[in-house]
């Protein structure tokens, strides 16, 4: 199974061991772990389009919500696109949902390949697309109250580095509000 959505914390080692076992001939494994930051600057809120929040805030925890069924399908599609673009022996994506305290783990991407370039690109591609396409939503709860976060411009820019979607079934074009009709 490439994609796991879980409401409990995950063990990096467990998934690293899984990928190594699934990719016995790999020469390179790249892992990305996203953590809940305990402090968010006002600039981050502005990038997210949440201009009403103009001061920095300490974060106590996140509430992470997703669209069950659709999220798994989107993440699996992102993994398959990564496999088409890069030479990957194994991939695993783990994403937590529910309440996640400051400094805890949110997301893990593990990519194994014969060559380190593919492993790095594979992991980074999955993260960039996951950030901009997968149906997760974060509410930050902290000193400035509660705040739903929006898509960050920096994440949109990061996803664009990979150029056009690699197949017609790709959802990226539709994921951006600007590409939708305005009837």
């Amino acid at each position, binding site marked *: 199974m490439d994609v796991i959505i879980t409401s409990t914390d995950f063990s990096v080692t467990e998934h690293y061991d899984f990928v190594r076992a699934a990719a016995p001939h790999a020469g390179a494994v790249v892992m990305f772990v996203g953590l809940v930051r305990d402090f968010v600057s006002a600039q981050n809120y502005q990038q997210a389009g949440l201009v009403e929040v103009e001061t920095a805030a300490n974060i106590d925890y996140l509430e992470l919500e997703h*669209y069950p069924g659709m999220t798994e399908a989107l993440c699996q599609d992102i993994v398959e696109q990564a496999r088409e673009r890069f030479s990957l022996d194994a991939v695993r994506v783990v994403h937590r949902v529910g309440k996640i305290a400051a400094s805890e783990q949110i997301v893990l991407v593990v990519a194994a390949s014969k060559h380190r370039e593919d492993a790095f690109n594979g992991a980074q591609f999955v993260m960039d697309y996951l950030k901009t396409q997968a149906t997760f939503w974060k509410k930050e709860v902290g000193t400035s109250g509660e705040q739903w976060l929006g898509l960050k411009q920096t994440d949109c820019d990061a996803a664009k580095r990979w150029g056009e979607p690699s197949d017609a079934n790709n959802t990226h074009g539709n994921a951006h509000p600007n590409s939708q009709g305005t009837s």
Partner: protein
Amino acid sequence: MIKVLFFAHLREMAGTNSVEVPLGDMALASDLLTGLKGYVPDALLNELQDQSAMVSINHRYAGWQGQLEEGAEVGILPPVSGG
């Protein structure tokens, strides 16, 4: 019937995870902006007017021009913020 799911701050505005509305003569997802009237608070419908939320139909991104069919599951999706 059409099942409409709301997420994040739109779910909070709706006061519910989902509502079911009759297909009636709705053809496109954008017809939900009127079709949902009475099922969710007007404030939510006003929020949706600029169509900055995304729309999925049966778990696929579809856009407000997406075709509705009897039994469809429609997601009203604020800009995502995972990872």
